[in-house]
């Protein structure tokens, strides 16, 4: 983009670079390929929340205190989600994808970037109602261990129950959402049975590789955080993992347009951002 003048970087932008470098060299977490504007905002929020005077001060701490890395990564990750978020997408999965999955005797599903598990439990409920749950192994992964631990618990604030219930119905839920949880202490705890085929595991999309051959990958609102380069890495990983003709479901605003690997997918439902691995390659 040659028409943009190269200004002298502001001190804060230099500090961000050094922070990223320190986290990478010292702890192996590489955030250099996260979209910078939102990443910077999160870093500055952390500086304030943790009571540091500057980014550099926080960098100093992370260099010398290994125990600080977990809360830092948790603070840089964005485990924001909802059950059946964008119900139309779950409806499309149920109506356009599940019938095709029915022909396989065993299914693998990978949800990448599972946050607190909201979407993987949503998926589990729909699979159950479609009679597919028994034959399915679901992998729910994230790089945020604290979020994974919460996801494993399957406990959510009771105030969300109403929205989740509305979303569930809009997603074409066949019963009542309340069949799937017990309410106590202002929280809802999802039915333990829902996670008998779910494996929660740490997987970092920046660094880790193929670990299963999924028929469906759900990765919503994760690519928005990644630069074109990292999007291409992740989409290549998805392509190489998926079985031939396997499905990929992205977030409502995400596109395949800025990564070469996007060409290896064909759209099934553009609005719901559901794609299939093109069968021609490899």
């Amino acid at each position: 983009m040659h028409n943009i003048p190269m200004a002298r970087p502001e001190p804060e932008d230099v500090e961000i670079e050094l922070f990223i470098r320190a986290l990478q060299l010292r702890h192996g977490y590489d955030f250099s390929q996260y979209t910078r504007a939102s990443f910077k905002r999160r870093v500055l929020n952390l500086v304030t929340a943790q009571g540091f005077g500057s980014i550099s001060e926080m960098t100093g701490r992370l260099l010398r205190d290994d125990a600080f890395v977990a809360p830092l990564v948790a603070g840089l990750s964005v485990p924001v989600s909802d059950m059946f978020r964008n119900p139309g997408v779950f409806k499309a999965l149920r109506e356009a994808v599940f019938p095709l999955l029915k022909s396989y005797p065993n299914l693998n599903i990978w949800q990448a970037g599972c946050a607190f598990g909201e979407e993987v439990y949503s998926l589990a409920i729909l699979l159950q109602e479609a009679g597919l749950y028994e034959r399915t192994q679901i992998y729910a992964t994230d790089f945020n261990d604290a979020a994974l631990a919460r996801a494993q618990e399957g406990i959510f604030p009771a105030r969300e129950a109403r929205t989740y219930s509305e979303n569930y119905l809009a997603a074409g839920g066949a019963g009542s959402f309340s069949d799937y949880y017990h309410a106590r202490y202002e929280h809802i705890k999802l039915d333990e049975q829902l996670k008998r085929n779910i494996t929660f595991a740490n997987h970092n999309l920046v660094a880790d590789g193929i670990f299963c051959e999924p028929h469906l990958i759900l990765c919503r609102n994760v690519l928005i955080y990644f630069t074109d380069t990292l999007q291409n890495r992740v989409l290549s990983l998805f392509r190489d993992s998926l079985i031939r003709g396997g499905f990929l479901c992205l977030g409502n605003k995400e596109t395949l347009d800025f990564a070469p690997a996007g060409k290896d997918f064909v759209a099934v439902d553009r609005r719901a951002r559901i794609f299939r691995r093109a069968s021609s390659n490899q």
Partner: protein
Amino acid sequence: MSDAAAAAVVIGCSAGGLHALRIVLAGLRPQLPAALVVVCHTGSEDVEMLVGLLKRDCALPVSEAGERCQLLEGQVHVAPSGYHLYIEQERRFSLSIDPKVCFVRPSIDVLFESAAQAFTSKLAAVVMTGANDDGALGLRAVRARGGLAIVQNPAEALAPAMPQAALNLAGADHVCQLAEIAPVINRWCA
């Protein structure tokens, strides 16, 4: 693909914003040599309808700000609902579902602050009618980097809280009636 815009105008509004936006957009001259970016809190999931309404009396093309798309001169980009909208250094959009900021997403502050960093003095920012104080911090960031600040006169705004909060915190280069905002932008772009 054409080059990214060299200048931008960012506009934030909330309660009463549709009416205000229509008046401002109607006054802009065609082929304005700047990209326009609009955040209007609507509470609705779907921004297509807002885009449709804004198109009606605007000489410039209006569309939803697309994830990773470039900011284009003479184009009105409208923030999608449910996501924060950022402008990256290379003058492309990016989105996030980071938590709401002051109870809203998209947040005007988030857009303005990232725009200020990307465009520095080649940026004009407009705060109009609204019932909260979103946009005030953002406007301060715009001014701190040499951008132009335009605030709708709170006395005239349907909901005065937002322009008033912006004035209190950031001040402004122009405090205008709605009808005067477009002419100020047209002149600034010239």
